């Protein structure tokens, strides 16, 4: 069944969309888009490390992304630089270091375009296993920390005062972000992962009035984007990442129409 590369890509993409849907909502709510971007940029370094040390790509990306997240937290504590400057610093320097290291690894032939924008041909049966088990673990953990994470997203002090331990939830969420980037890097590409997190969630925001609805619509949006994106990628021979993101962009634009309609109805 998984012999066909396209089926593999489809199954992988659907697994990723199930995870990026709910996580993406928190990225939007907590204003973490640039944070996600930074982790994704650092993933290139993770990929080069995987090749040099012959590690699994997902594992190595996960380690590097978590490390970058830790460094970020330390820098935030120790310097007076604003958060976005620190994020920019880490994003671009880790991308630069990654590219330089690739330059040195002349003995390996890299498909840079594939790394940056995703490659459906690259998805193996092992990747499927990583995506689906990794994804299931991520969702399970997210379910467990949902209450404190959501409460502290609404108001940190309320969550803290009423005994929900928001700091721990935040730390765990950071690790989940690194994990989702690790499992989706091959498919979506490191430049476009944040789009996969944000765009379906943003689309869902336009059409929902409660947090649960937003999560559900965000998942549905992600699944549709993957299906539409992959079929068009096959049809027009385009990279998988950009095709999926374009599909989600189209869904987002459709959700804007919905807003206009509801505003008209109100007047």
């Amino acid at each position, binding site marked *: 069944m998984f012999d066909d590369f396209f089926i593999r890509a489809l199954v992988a993409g659907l697994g990723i969309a199930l995870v990026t849907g709910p996580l993406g909502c928190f990225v939007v709510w907590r204003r973490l888009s640039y944070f996600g971007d930074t982790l994704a940029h650092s993933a290139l370094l993770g990929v080069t490390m995987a090749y040099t040390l012959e590690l699994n790509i997902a594992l190595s990306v996960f380690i590097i992304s978590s490390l970058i997240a830790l460094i970020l937290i330390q820098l935030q504590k120790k310097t007076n630089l604003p958060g976005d400057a620190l994020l920019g610093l880490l994003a671009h320097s880790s991308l630069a270091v990654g590219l330089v290291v690739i330059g040195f690894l002349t003995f390996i032939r890299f498909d840079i375009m594939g790394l940056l924008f995703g490659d459906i041909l690259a998805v193996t049966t092992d990747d499927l296993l990583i995506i689906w088990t990794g994804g299931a673990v991520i969702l399970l953990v997210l379910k467990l920390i949902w209450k404190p994470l959501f409460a502290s997203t*609404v*108001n940190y002090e309320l969550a*803290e005062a009423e*005994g929900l331990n928001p700091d721990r939830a935040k730390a765990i969420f950071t690790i989940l972000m690194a994990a989702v980037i690790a499992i989706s890097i091959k498919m979506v590409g490191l430049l476009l992962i944040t789009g996969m997190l944000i765009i379906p969630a943003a689309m869902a925001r336009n059409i929902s009035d409660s*947090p649960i609805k937003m999560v559900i619509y965000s998942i549905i949006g992600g699944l549709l984007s993957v299906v539409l994106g992959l079929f068009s990628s096959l049809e027009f021979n385009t990279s998988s990442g950009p095709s999926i993101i374009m599909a989600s962009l189209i869904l987002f634009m459709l959700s804007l129409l919905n807003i206009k309609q509801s505003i008209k109805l109100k007047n």
Partner: protein
Amino acid sequence: MSRENNILVKLNNAGFKQNGKWLVEGVTLAVEKGKIVTLIGPNGSGKSTTAKIALGIYKNIEGSVEKYTNKVGYVPQKISIDWTLPIRVRDFMLLTENIKEEKIDEALSLTGVIHLKNKSLGNLSGGEFQRVLIARAICKKPELLVLDEPVQGVDYTGEIALYELIKKISDSLHCGILLISHDLHTVMTATDHVVCLNGHVCCSGSPMDVARNNEYKTLFGEQASQILSVYEHKHDHVHLDEGEIKKN
């Protein structure tokens, strides 16, 4: 809960310093089951800070705080809800604990905002939101209720009704309440213990003791002191919702 003395939360010589400046220091107080402790004091005197110390929101404090309950309801002084969150009143009611639908309805009815249950939180007026905040805090049947100026922005009749509700809750739930209020009338009618803050505890005791205290007089003026002594004589009945008068 500490068994012998019903204490829910206790501050021992507690203080908090931010950016090298003391927000409040040397606060000792205890909130017991079924009792209302009120913090009064001018702006910037450390009332909210003291509440946050008691709640454990501030971590690196001087002195110590002993908390004997985890069932806490908190109405913060200011709270802003982000527009990026699609959240209705009923979602907000479930924020920190899962609560049965009928309990939610009951709490929202008590504070007079049941009709807003499915409204988006971002569309409420200041006073409506304040009522929702109070409903959320009492809905989970807390043992300790911390109310930081809970009726700000609420209309005058609503204010009186809400304070009566708070008193009623303290009696029926038998929970301890830490109340911050600038309304000295309220302080007098409902409170068991008053702590007057001005960066430190300037005086504390029963409402009457505080009213007679000289430091209190210099802080709030002679007139405020008279408000309190007036109550000493008048406070022999309460007005119920239906307009009846109940003798104490």
